[in-house]
């Protein structure tokens, strides 16, 4: 069954992947042995998900080969991967909410005889796995009626019903509570004992050492190394994950900190899924004029929720107090927040930032239309003037200002969104991933802009998943893990290793 030399049943060798000219994976190796849990570790964007999507047939790699049982295989669809016993449990739920557990589990791969679905057989098989997972659900009710954790378990059971030999789990515990996590781990050990190979992705240090037999680390799409968990110390692991030099292109920011402009006290945000009570618990911090405060955290840490709750509380329950220049902001809806001097650049540029069909000019003035139409009638010339001014200041590249923004590149689109928020004349800028999907040149320009704004006295709260960027830009960093602030570091104190360790909850929960 397995490779007689290495004992591995799966080999991914020299995998490379290029997406529309951008290299995301380079010469990555991964081998999985029967009966082991292999943790795949790395920062956000290190290439873990891409690698796993290649393994389960979603993407076809540009370079390299995948060998299963010593034979080279090429999966062209998830279906082919499934047929070879490779299953993936996705991070986001992939169940169809209105269908019941059985229909979900066998969706597209129904057990059938002469065209008739063998429902009874399906139910027996799924029930068996659900029982082993300790989950009791009515197989005929739509899965949406169950909490997310149960849905997650159904997802696990779904993967197991097809006798997976290689099971990929992408952060399976993110929606589970303690007892459920234990249950899941018990099943994982069970699977190991049955000779199943598990590839496990997690951001939780505690989990890594609890469950891993071996660890492979990726960094910036490159292979760093593989080691037995027992032989890789925590600090060594962190070094593997971050170990890169801070790149040259950061201008050294000078601190401009002045008076306090924003104060946040005991901010808590309710979990929208209703699973845990609070997604964010008791976050407090203050921001001075011209200061940049970074909110660090790995996926699911709650830093994005903190930022959203500062600007917009319409979507969920929020506790705690926010003061802007000494004035308490009680009901924070976008209209009022903007009026008070907050501006919020979302990470979802196309979904929440831009009106793609609208022109550059119109997007630029979107959040400050009142100033451009004092008597309701829009002053087109003033609008164009503002758009041109920002275009010049941001060095935005466009054909005409009347061009729809959907025709612009990612970096230029981002500059338009930034222009929109600058046009509201904010006191505090909330920037969520300002350089996501932006090319290197535009990134540098955005850094310079941030520097200029702080010089003008604007306070900035920054979230970025690029660690060097965070370290270079932030005067202070709040590190979050599981909804709480686990460390606060000043510039100079913060190193990649320390931030990452805090973000993984090291020393906090162990």
């Amino acid at each position, binding site marked *: 069954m397995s490779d007689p030399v290495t004992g591995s049943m799966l080999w991914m060798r020299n995998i490379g992947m290029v997406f529309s000219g951008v290299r995301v994976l380079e010469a990555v190796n991964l081998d999985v042995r029967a009966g082991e849990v292999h943790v795949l570790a790395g920062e956000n964007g290190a290439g873990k998900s891409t690698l796993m999507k290649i393994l389960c047939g979603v993407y076809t790699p540009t370079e390299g080969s995948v060998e299963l049982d010593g034979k080279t295989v090429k999966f062209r669809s998830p279906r082919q991967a499934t047929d070879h016993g490779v299953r993936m449990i996705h991070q986001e739920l992939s169940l169809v909410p209105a269908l019941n557990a059985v229909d979900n589990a066998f969706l597209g791969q129904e057990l059938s005889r002469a065209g008739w679905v063998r429902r009874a057989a399906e139910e027996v098989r799924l029930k068996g796995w659900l029982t082993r997972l300790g989950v009791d659900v009515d197989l005929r009710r739509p899965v949406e009626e169950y909490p997310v954790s149960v849905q997650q378990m159904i997802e696990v059971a779904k993967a197991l019903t097809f006798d997976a030999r290689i099971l990929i789990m992408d952060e399976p515990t993110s929606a589970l509570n303690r007892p459920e996590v234990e249950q899941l781990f018990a099943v994982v050990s069970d699977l190991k004992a049955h000779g199943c190979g598990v590839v496990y992705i997690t951001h939780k240090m505690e989990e890594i050492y609890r469950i891993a037999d071996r660890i492979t680390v990726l960094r910036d799409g490159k292979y760093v190394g593989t080691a037995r968990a027992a032989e890789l110390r925590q600090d060594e692991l962190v070094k593997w994950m971050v170990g890169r030099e801070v790149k040259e292109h950061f201008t050294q920011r000078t601190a401009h900190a002045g008076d306090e402009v924003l104060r946040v006290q005991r901010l808590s945000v309710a979990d929208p899924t209703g699973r845990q009570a609070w997604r964010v618990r008791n976050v407090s911090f203050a921001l001075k004029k011209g200061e940049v405060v970074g909110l660090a955290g790995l996926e699911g840490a709650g830093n994005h929720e903190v930022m959203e709750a500062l600007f917009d509380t319409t979507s969920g329950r929020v506790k705690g107090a926010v003061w802007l220049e000494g004035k308490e902001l009680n009901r924070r809806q976008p*209209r009022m927040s903007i009026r008070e001097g907050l501006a919020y650049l979302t990470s979802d540029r196309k979904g929440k*930032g831009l009106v793609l*069909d*609208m022109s550059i000019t119109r997007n630029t003035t*979107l959040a400050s239309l009142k100033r451009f139409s004092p008597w*309701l009638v*829009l002053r087109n010339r003033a609008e164009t003037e503002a758009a041109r001014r920002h275009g010049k200041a941001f060095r935005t590249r466009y054909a005409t200002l009347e061009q729809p923004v959907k025709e612009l590149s990612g970096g230029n689109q981002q500059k338009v969104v930034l222009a929109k928020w600058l046009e509201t004349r904010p006191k505090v800028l909330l920037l969520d991933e300002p350089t996501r999907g932006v090319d290197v040149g535009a990134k540098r320009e955005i850094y310079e802009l941030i520097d200029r704004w702080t010089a003008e006295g604007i306070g900035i709260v920054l979230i970025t998943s690029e660690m060097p960027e965070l370290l270079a830009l932030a005067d202070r960093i709040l590190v979050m893990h599981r909804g709480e602030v686990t460390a606060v570091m000043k510039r100079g104190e913060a190193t990649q290793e320390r931030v990452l360790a805090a973000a993984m909850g090291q020393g906090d929960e162990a």
Partner: protein
Amino acid sequence: MKKRIMAILLEPVFRAFLALLLMVVIGLVFNAHGAFFKSGTHLDMLRENSRYAILACGMTLVIVAGGIDLAVGSVLGMTAVCFALFTIHWGWPPLIASVACAGIGLATGLVSGALAGQFRIQPFIATLAMMVFARGLAKSISGGEKISTSIHQADGSFKFGTLPPVFEQLSGRVWNDTIPVVLLVLLVTALVCWVLLSRLRWGRYLYAIGGNEEAARLSGIPIMGSKLLAYGLCGLLAAVAGICHAADEQQGDPEAGMGYELTAIAMVVIGGTSLSGGRGSIPLTLLGALTIGYLDKILSLNNVETAYRLMLTGLIIVCAVLFQRAKR
């Protein structure tokens, strides 16, 4: 230079104009023994389609904001009944009756807008409900009968009222008996809607909401207020069209306006506005209205049988939309 011409050719307005031109050429070829060359034919066409175009203007506001209003036909019927009732039976002065009808139309639109905006009912469903409800209301107000100058008495006999002059005035023509009054009503309507959409802040709000509601909300745009504005105006314009309809028919028919919402939507769509929202304009809609108007007129002039008329109309709508969408 070539690029410049291409850009002009790809302009939605140009395309809509081309579709209209094509229709006129068809009319010139199939001119029905010269009937197409008479100015009266074209004025008739304009008069006949002005009511639809008024509805289409209101519909444009709603569609630009990413919604749809299926209730306009029913609201037209209801306000036609109300207008006839107020003026003929109750003897209200035309101005007061018109304002009352406009208020009724506005109210139906505001309800639709509130259902779609505040209660997050899909616009299709919310306005479908309003469509059925308003039709029922029209029937209940009128007692299922046409409201005309023959007034039902309690003993079953009829009394004949006189037709208030406003009916003749609204359905008549001015300037040497050439320009239909309802066409002027349409032009005023179109002007108001055009100013709103392209010159006022509120119009910009509608485009932003239709283009990306979440981005608009996060940019501080009042979603609810804007939707109320769009649906409210759409309802109001349906009432304006209803008053014109009553004047035209010299009675208030509770069955009036059946299916008009689809004609109005077709006019907006043929103009090149997409139903997904965020795009479109009043000039486009007017071009679409003319295209449909001419199509209908040409089919009628040439005495084409109903069965073929329906099939041809369907085909031409599809062709026009495909033509609008064609890329370089």
